[in-house]
């Protein structure tokens, strides 16, 4: 493992470790000296709720433990492993990397999500990783609304060594995406990353604008965009369900990136999203620098969520 790789690996570990320490303490506290009775199960359920799993799923997961372990004397470690296993089962179904397909050049990746979730930063990180991999990357600054959105992306483009296609504020994002796609084809780029303005999923007009971008891209290639990434902030609560559902219905989300997992938010909603919608999860964000994006790993995520080493 190279020095640099260990750097971000440890950073992730530190991030996820922090985010799960409270849960870990809780579990240890509950089970250190007790058998798995109703009271213990109730507390366990609450710990899962506090990790944003949602009431229904928290009840279900503890229900599964009740069926198999009720009244047994169990060590905290054991319970943690069992919990992680339950969650990893659901998460494993959505653990799928975002792959470049040599037959599809350029691969068009549209990045969507609510305001401030981390779209632009994720694009910057992705661009950097692709560039480090020797790929050519073009970035379309499709957020033509927010103040200094283009300048922000330009900084990321420079860091990554990727060209940024931009227009003035207020320009038509769909037209810009179309031009960027044409240019990426002309230049033989491997990847085209398209940034979009943050938008709340309940704004029908803004969602229609997003659909227009998709329509325009399909004029060039009916299969485009080849990936539509929904960027979710780990601090989000149950509203993530609405976001996933509506963005999926409107623009056919093909994958999820969960950012800001370096805080104390545990992103437990990802487990219920996996069960409900089965949308693949590609990456997690664990910081603000280019190297702070890493592939989503179901087991690691689940184990880290309950405070276990991987």
């Amino acid at each position: 493992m190279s020095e640099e790789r260990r750097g971000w690996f440890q950073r992730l570990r530190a991030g996820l470790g922090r985010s799960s320490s409270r849960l870990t303490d809780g579990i240890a506290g509950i089970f250190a000296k007790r058998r798995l009775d109703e009271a213990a199960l109730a507390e366990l359920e609450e710990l899962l709720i506090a990790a944003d799993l949602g009431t229904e799923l928290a009840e279900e997961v503890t229900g599964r433990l009740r069926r198999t372990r009720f009244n047994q004397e169990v060590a905290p470690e054991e319970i943690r492993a069992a919990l992680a296993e339950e969650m990893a089962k659901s998460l494993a179904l959505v653990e799928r990397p975002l792959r470049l397909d040599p037959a599809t050049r350029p691969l068009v990746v549209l990045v969507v999500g609510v305001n401030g979730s981390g779209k632009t930063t994720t694009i910057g990180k992705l661009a950097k990783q692709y560039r480090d991999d020797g790929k050519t990357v073009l970035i379309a600054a499709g957020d033509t609304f927010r103040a200094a959105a283009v300048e922000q992306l330009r900084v990321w483009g420079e860091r990554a060594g990727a060209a940024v296609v931009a227009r003035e504020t207020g320009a038509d994002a769909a037209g810009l995406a179309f031009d960027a796609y044409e240019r990426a084809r002309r230049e033989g780029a491997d990847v085209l990353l398209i940034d979009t303005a943050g938008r709340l999923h309940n704004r029908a007009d803004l969602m229609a604008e997003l659909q227009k971008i998709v329509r325009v891209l399909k004029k060039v290639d009916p299969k485009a965009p080849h990936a539509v990434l929904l960027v979710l902030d780990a601090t989000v609560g149950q509203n993530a369900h609405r976001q996933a559902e509506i963005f999926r219905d409107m623009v056919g989300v093909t994958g999820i990136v969960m950012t800001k997992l370096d805080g104390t938010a545990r992103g437990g909603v990802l487990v219920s999203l996996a069960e409900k919608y089965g949308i693949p999860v590609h990456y997690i964000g664990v910081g603000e620098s280019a190297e702070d994006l890493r592939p989503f790993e179901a087991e690691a995520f689940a184990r880290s969520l309950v405070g276990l080493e991987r």
Partner: protein
Amino acid sequence: MFESLSNRLNDVFDRLRRHGALSEDDVNAALREIRVALLEADVALPVVKDFVNAVRETAVGQEVLRSVTPGQMVVKIVHDHLVETLGGVAAQPLNLNAVPPVVVMMVGLQGSGKTTTAAKLGRIVRLRERKKVLLASLDVQRPAAQEQLAVLARQAEVTSLPIVAGERPVAIARRALDMGRREAYDVVILDTAGRLHIDEPLMQEVAAVRDAAQPTETLLVADAMTGQDAVNVAKAFAERVGITGIVLTRVDGDARGGAALSMRQITGRPIKFMGTGEKLDALEPFHAERVAGRILGMGDVVGLVEKAAETVDQEEAEKLARKLQKGGFDLDDLAQQLKQLRKMGGMGGVMGMLPGINKVKKQLEEAKIDDGMIKRQEAIISSMTKSERRNPKLLNASRRLRIAAGSGTSVPEINRLLKQYQDMAGMMKKMNKLGKKGLMRHGLSAILPGGGGGFGR
């Protein structure tokens, strides 16, 4: 999964009604549902516990008024307690009682809306308080953060501190205060970089800025969509930085907003404002009753009415009212109503604010009313000739066939639209008595089949 509290409670209340009194068992049954509802609304667990206990204390043994059911009584107690916990009916204003330049500092997690809110506040203070405002960005982390604030300041028509590349946050704060004093600014608003509450160096940095700038207001800016983590965040910022108030952003979304209750309860600090959009005029005093209704899943009725009043074109509404007085509601008017509905954010936007949303939603789904249908109906009407629109009686079978082909719809769909139009025209006649105000309120529900809120078809 996200059954609204009102639906849940209806079941419990049916049982309660049979009992007819507020015994401890009754209250506990209702409180179990309230607990789940609050958790689903993202209120943090420890806060839910305190809240439920407080409600239990008030509710048990409470005499049930004759005119209400025990269920209604519990809802009222819960609602009132929620409003009170959220800070009561009147929002606390920004505190600007200090020797100028008064310093306001924005803090919070990454992407919560600090920079946007700083500019929104600058605009409000300039307009409403008629004060001279200076905005300064201390964000040396995020790419182009200072440019972002400079652009927003221009839009808000307030000054922003000239950017000096490479300068550290504390130094920027000092320079902002210097300029504030020298050029007689009344208020200096400091925007800071987003930071995690567990990021020790960055928390120390913001504490150092606080010590240097001595802000009168330190506002924690937090997203209404935040989940259980809201307590950890609010607690850490309150302890480490010392906040004086909270701003809840993205209230224009459809999150239930339980984080508001969590943060208010944990910090004891008032929620002063709420952000209701990306534009700079989208900042309002915090409205506890509206947010309480949303947390309880009872719908943001006030918000709906206000949005309707805002969006419905005044002139169009008056024109329609005049026409109705003459009894001439035609298909052009229907088209107009459809357009207005779309402007309000489509069915999704409107429905998110309606009370009893789940029940209504089901009925709407059965009736196949969605944004697609609205668009098809608009297409049908636009495929008609002028005279057909004025006089729908002209629409015989062959004309209907032509319109179906022209609009890419079907004859049954056209028949349905016409039936809906007839129902509405009848309704509208009745509504004449309500006058202009009444029309604006009821125009929306009247365009749904069956009219007048009865969605059963």
